[in-house]
């Protein structure tokens, strides 16, 4: 695999940096390291990276503030690393504009998958591939004809169900927080009514999934939101 993308790792723990650097460099990425939030912001401004990996537990500043600082001038994908006790920070960071997250400890496979999804999402947006057909296994969403099929059988969706599905397709592979989905589908007045989302997600699953209790496409990120599987 040969990637020329530049990644910035903002992480204060040397051992984690070492493991990330070794793994990512072997995958062909250009790796820049930053130990603190401030240093990370400086590097992000000067290096023009393709992706930033940000640890939420930095010694000098709040990880959420780092996300906000970067989002003030750039749409560069940000993948967050968080510990188990940082549930709320993680959601705040995602709501502030971070693209995805990984909970420590994580495996290399997971990390690389998230990086690929984030990078691809950027390229698809840039190349204007937004409209078209999304397909994973037997699920096919044809956004030009507003047609959803499972194993070739058309599934009838209500307008809201369809809109929910299209938002997920637009960000396929990325985790979407409850707040973001509620805002996109129902509007800003509905961001606190998470049960709407859960009920509609349940209906969608029953319409699209073979085993709704073990979804293949519409994955639950417990306590955070949902993600549409891309592979």
């Amino acid at each position, binding site marked *: 695999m040969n990637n020329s993308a530049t990644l910035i790792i903002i992480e204060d723990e040397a051992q984690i940096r070492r493991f990330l650097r070794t793994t990512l460099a072997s995958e062909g990425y250009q790796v820049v390291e930053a130990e603190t939030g401030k240093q990370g912001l400086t590097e992000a401004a000067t290096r023009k990276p393709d992706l930033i990996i940000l640890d939420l537990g930095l010694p000098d500043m709040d990880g959420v503030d780092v996300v906000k600082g970067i989002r003030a001038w750039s749409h560069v994908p940000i993948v967050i690393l968080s510990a*188990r006790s940082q549930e709320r920070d993680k959601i705040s960071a995602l709501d502030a504009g971070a693209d995805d997250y990984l909970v420590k400890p994580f495996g290399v496979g997971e990390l690389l998958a998230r990086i690929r999804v984030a990078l691809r999402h950027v390229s698809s947006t840039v190349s204007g591939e937004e409209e078209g057909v999304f397909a994973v296994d037997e699920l096919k969403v044809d956004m030009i004809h507003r047609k959803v099929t499972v194993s070739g059988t058309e599934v009838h969706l209500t307008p809201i169900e369809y809109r929910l599905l299209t938002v997920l397709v637009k960000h396929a592979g990325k985790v979407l927080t409850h707040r973001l989905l509620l805002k996109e589908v129902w509007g800003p007045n509905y961001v606190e009514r998470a049960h*709407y989302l*859960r009920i509609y997600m*349940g209906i969608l699953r029953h319409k699209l999934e073979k085993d*709704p209790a073990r*979804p293949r496409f519409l994955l639950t990120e*417990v306590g955070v939101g949902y993600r549409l599987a891309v592979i």
Partner: protein
Amino acid sequence: MTDQRPDPDALLEKVQRAESIRRRGRLKIFFGASAGVGKTFGMLLAARERRAEGLDVVAGYVETHKRTETEQLLEGLEVLPPRLVPYRDTQLREFDLDAALKRHPALILVDELAHTNAPGSRHPKRWQDVEELLDAGIDVYTAINVQHIESLNDVVSQITGIPVWETVPDAVLESANEIELIDLPPDELLQRLKEGKVYLPQQAERAAQNFFRKGNLIALRELALRRTADRVDAQMRDYREDHAIQSVWQVKERLLVCIGSGGTAENLVRAAYRLAQLLKAEWIVLYVETAKLQRLSKEQRDAILRTLKLAEELGAETVTLGGHKLAEEVISYALSRNASRIVLGKPTLSGWKRWLFGSLVDTIVRKASDIDIHVVGKESNFLSQARESPYFSRSRLYLGLAPEEQNSLFTWSTAYLWAIVATAICTAIAWLMFDHVDLANLIMVYLLGVVVVASRYGHGPSVLSSLLSVVLFDFFFVPPRFSFAVSDTQYLITFAVMLLVGLVISSMTIRIQHQAKIAGHRERRTASLYAMSRELAATRGEDNILRIAVKHVAEVFEAQAVVLLPDETGRIAYPKSEGTAQSCHGSDLSIAQWVYDHGQMAGQGTDTLPGGEIVYLPLKASSGMRGVLALLPLNPARIALPEQQRLLETFTSQIALALERVRLAAEAQSAQIKMETEQLRNALLSAISHDLRTPLAAIVGASSSLVRDGDRLDRHARNELGQTIYDEAIRMSGLANNLLDMARLEAGAVVLNRQWQPLEEVVGGALAGLTARMVNHPVTVKLSHDLPLVEIDSLLIERVFANLLENAVKYTPPGTPIEISAATGQDELVVTVSDKGAGIPAGEEQRIFEKFHRVDSEGNQGGAGLGLTICQSIVEAHGGRIWADNLSSGGAAFHFALPLSEPPLIEQEEAVPS
């Protein structure tokens, strides 16, 4: 010969006494027959010898009376400066107890043991100062004359004709370790007196002249010698008991002394005391309060209470009983207490009266066949009058009567007036009936009047009414009418019988009323005690006990009260909680502390600091002092009544017991907590040592192999090692997560983020997280479509599922299925995770939820035994419950129930902007 063996109880008592003596200071008394025999001189001589032996000797208080030979002996001894107490125009020199306690010498000299301290001192009497010195472990030398000994006091007064009121209880003398008799033949003493070597106070000069007559001196000398001989005899007996010389072990004697209302009661008590001393017997002084005795005047009742107090001071147990048949009460009580002898006073009635009405002595002698009876002769009575000393006038104050009895002295003139009026009314009624009924029935009207008067106004008025009835009946109705003359002599019999019946009725009515009153009193006492005991038994917590105690004590004793408790360092402190209306304020903590330290009463009406208004009572429980009850009685005299004292003691011991119970409970609880903490710590240590170190060992081993021999290993081996490291690290991560969850749940740091969720989604989340480990276990999810939403924290409930699933995987063989199902019950959603494994061992259904508990602690399932505990904490935080059982078809089932409530409404889609 088993009889030869000493009684073990007696021996134990002996040892305990010896131990307490070892802790106490030693008391040596220089004992003399009269002033001038050289007690102070002897005492100083002995003290100089001790000092020469190197002992730390201080003269606490020595009265030299300016005698040069005595003063010379004092030279070179350290003398404690006296405490100067202003008294009227002069200053009194008093022994300084606090200075002595502070100086704390090995031996202290304190002269004149019988001295009465100046008003305002800590103790009224010097012997009480000495007691405190001894308690503090200081040895004391002191001196006393025979006339100052309580039990000999009356004898001495009879011999010399001079009353003495500075007395020392015999118990003090008996507790002395040594008594040295300072003896001087009367002739030599008189010679010394002539030479002016004996100190005589100016004002007592004449009395002293009377006192120092040769006859007196001989008698006093005999008393002193006999007293000392008694003591030596007792020591001898002690010695023999110690060494089991005596072949027959004496049965312990018990004397029962019955006192009455007469002036001889005091003499009787003293005589009984001497008898009890001789017999080495316990003695009980009994006063039976019959209806007749209840009608005694205030002075007479005072005298009885004083006698009872004296008996207590002499070491007797005093008992007051109510009843109307004196002899029977005495005998039944004697039998119940197993008394071997009864001591009685000589009957006061004589001749025909005694023959007609009988006497107590005769009745008891006749009825109590198994008990020895001692009858004590009547003695001169002048003592009772002579005893109006300051000390006793004070005693009188606090031996006064209960208020209702003082007030119930019915204004008698009114009562008699009513008696006359009632009889007049009877006459009027009889007048109206005269024409219609027989004369005999008119008598009944009069008798009715007598009954009414007797029941309302007591004995005297009813007797008057009886007499008047006879007179009026005679005058108005018996022919010839309107004259006292009687035509038919038969009427004389009528009059006699009428009078007799009237008198009997009146006395019986009054007796019944008194009985009822006594019973009522006793009933109230018992009821109040019962009420408090019951409330105390039902309560928890020290504050409640204090509140209940104060309430009841205040009610029963008509006082304000407060319970003072010690802090951790044993210092008595004021209560922290706010008082009630019944709380006693202004109690003196230093007195309370003294009471707490010494376990004795103090304050109003006691021997220690009697000046104040508050009484301080120790709260003594079996394991030691619990606190102090301070009482501010409205009527101090009432509290001093012996029966009230006893009731108060019962109350205090009940309160102390309740306090002790609370403390023991608290101790037991803290011990339990400590034990549990200990167990927890051990479990945690073993969890960390075993469950963290095992994967660590694997990781260290595998990674070190990769680092060292990475190049030499083939690809397969490297993958194998890498996989090992990965698996073990994940396992450790799981354990760390559980420990972290547990710690957060325990610390209460978890705030539930409850949201309305479909259960399906949470199950899905949990299954997704466990996919890798569930490969060998097919999981069936049976959730119906119409399950209601539940308001839960999805992250936490996911942990519950994850732990239950992991548990099922851990304890069932590969390939066996696991099933998740849910059903709605009454107000709750019951979720079940069941497996087809071996099931839960019997009796473990509860314990598996305990922290660090593992069904098979030696097994290799790994994990710290926290999973189910975490599940329980989470489910309970949601207001639900969790339990486990075995399925009848085999395998274990874990159930948890989550409460259901009304889910929020959701708008129909048409209404939503699209």
